[in-house]
């Protein structure tokens, strides 16, 4: 306890003049306040500042067994261009006209959900496959956003693939690549 025994040991004989005893009890309220304030500060800075990570699994490049042919009609391609815009199409490049959209909730996520449902209906419940093709002028943030949207919409079959010249030409035509 924060009190010291100030009573003094034994009896004092004689009428000695003694100084008045003061209680040694210290008011700890302010100290406790300060301590808790600092605790709160340290808890907040340590646990809230932890960086998090999104797991990304790339297909094995050397293993030929994992690469199987997929029907084009189930494949959706996302071409990431500059200025935070992308275009998408289902099927083979060139045959279907791509549509230009943004990365927002109303754009990309809606398209992903809609197309996934359409493809599931027409293919007897088989899920959509998404191929992400970032061009050299898309940013890292764009790729992360796309992967995140795919995580949110629960599309498990996706891959990041290098862009082909045909698709690059599509981006150039739509002014998404200089």
């Amino acid at each position, binding site marked *: 306890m924060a009190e010291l025994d100030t009573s003094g040991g034994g009896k004092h004989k004689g009428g000695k003049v003694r100084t008045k005893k003061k209680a040694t009890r210290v008011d700890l309220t302010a100290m406790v306040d300060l301590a808790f304030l600092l605790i709160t500060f340290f808890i907040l800075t340590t646990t809230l500042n932890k*960086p998090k990570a999104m797991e990304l699994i790339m297909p094995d490049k050397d293993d030929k067994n994992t690469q199987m042919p997929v029907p084009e009609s189930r494949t959706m391609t996302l071409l990431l261009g500059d200025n935070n815009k992308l275009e998408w199409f289902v099927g083979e490049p060139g045959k279907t006209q791509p549509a230009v959209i943004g990365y927002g909730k109303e754009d990309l996520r809606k398209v992903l959900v809609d197309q996934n449902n359409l493809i599931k209906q027409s293919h007897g419940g088989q899920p959509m496959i998404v191929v992400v093709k970032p061009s050299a002028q898309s940013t*890292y943030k764009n790729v992360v956003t796309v992967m*995140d949207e795919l995580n949110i919409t629960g599309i498990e079959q996706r891959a990041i693939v290098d862009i082909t010249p045909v698709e690059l030409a599509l981006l150039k035509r739509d002014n998404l690549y200089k």
Partner: protein
Amino acid sequence: MPRVKVARKSTAIDMTAMCDVAFLLLTFFILSAKPKTQDPAQIQIPAATVIGPIPEVDFSTISIGQGKVFFNVEGDDIRKKTLEIMGDKYKIAFTPDEKNIFAGVESFGVPISQLKTFLAMDAKQRSTVTQPGIPVDTTNTNELYDWVHSARLADKALHDKDLKIGIKGNSQEEFPTVAKVIATLQKQKVDRFNLITSLKSK
């Protein structure tokens, strides 16, 4: 009728125990807090919603910013061992002093030929000097490949764990730099890695 008087008690509470506990916790949090690692380049990490925690040990971070690549691996012992393995590969003999300095350097981005000069600087100079980044050419001088490989060997040798790798990229970084790093990792069959992101709401 006589009033029932409640005996007045002192409102002062003994705070000693509370104070003890508070300071104990405070000490714990101060000691467990890790100083923020300073990245040599300005890196603004992108945000994502579906994310998990990243491990604090057996973890290596590859930072990408302004077209440059920086490398870091957690743990002083692992860093030291990594440098030893790298020294063997590139036939550069590092002195024990240089190894000790390297063990304390968190994130760095200099080619291995300049590493000795970099380690000879004092800590203040190191944090201000512009680092050229680790070469990640896809052809022959891919030093990042060797750094990652050495760090994986070191982690396996010292902790017997598989090193996990995180990529910390700047949001506005153009994708080819990131693609180069990913290709480097895939060359050594690292197909699983973490993209370090901050949290955002859906």
